[in-house]
């Protein structure tokens, strides 16, 4: 088992995890099947363009779902995530053949030593622009 990070070792501003995720159109189809969200704007160019979008978009919930994974791996256990919230600010466009790279940086936003919890703030970008706002994960940690 991985070691659970200690709350005492954390300082606000520490970067605890960083990762890039390459989304292909296949990733979107896979997420559609796993989640049950079959809105065709997430896999059909003609439908996406028909409703005025620039192209096929990743599910916001896929972006939210992957963005927390670096924090899960750092904390060592998905059960340590107590609360997770995001605001969807910009879409992630996914081309039919090229991959879209979503980058995640996870930084300590708040340390609550007595409760042994920390708020980890995520910066999630695509093409140099943030796609999630107020992306915050509250995790329980070791003393």
């Amino acid at each position, binding site marked *: *088992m991985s070691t659970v990070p200690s709350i005492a070792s954390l300082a606000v501003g520490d970067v605890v995890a960083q990762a890039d*995720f390459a989304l292909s159109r296949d*990733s979107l189809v*896979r*997420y559609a*099947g*796993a*989640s*049950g*969200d079959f809105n065709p704007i997430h896999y059909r160019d003609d439908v996406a363009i028909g*409703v005025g979008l620039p192209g096929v978009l990743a599910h*916001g*919930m*896929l972006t*939210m*779902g*992957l963005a*927390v*994974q670096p924090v*899960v*791996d750092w904390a*060592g*256990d*998905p*059960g340590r*995530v*107590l*609360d*997770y*919230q*995001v*605001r*969807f600010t910009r879409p992630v466009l996914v081309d039919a053949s090229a991959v879209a790279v979503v980058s995640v940086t996870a930084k300590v936003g708040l340390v609550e030593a007595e409760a042994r919890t920390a708020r980890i703030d995520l910066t999630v970008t695509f093409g140099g622009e943030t796609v999630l706002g*107020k992306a915050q*994960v509250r995790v329980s940690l070791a003393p």
Partner: protein
Amino acid sequence: MPVNPELQGRVFPPTPPYLVGREKIREFSRAVFASNPINLDPEAARAAGYADVVAPPTFAVVIQEATLVQLLAEPDAGIDFTRIVHGDQRFSYARPIVAGDELTATLTVASVKSLGGHSMVTAESNIVDAAGAHVVTATSTLVVRGDE
């Protein structure tokens, strides 16, 4: 058609029980790039003190989905699903979801607000286990665009 402001405070009937399957958790985990063994391997999950594999933090959306279907189907809601943009999402856990859980969700419309021709509907789904104990609250804010 604007969203009906009288929706605010409305509580919907509980959804039918959803039995969380091990393979569903593994499938969902792969789809959100979760690679933690506790998400995928029952042995690793048991070693960490869980009865079976643990769902990723956003898996609750699968159970919440049934409540959003109820909301959109409400005859007097006035919510045109082609005009919905997902604004915010939050999951607040009392405990993680584990394979074998039987979960039921109850939707409350926490608020309906108007903002510059658009409506903002905050839908709060309280998800409980077979014993009725709170597992997670999933909250979505849906922005419903007004007529252009």
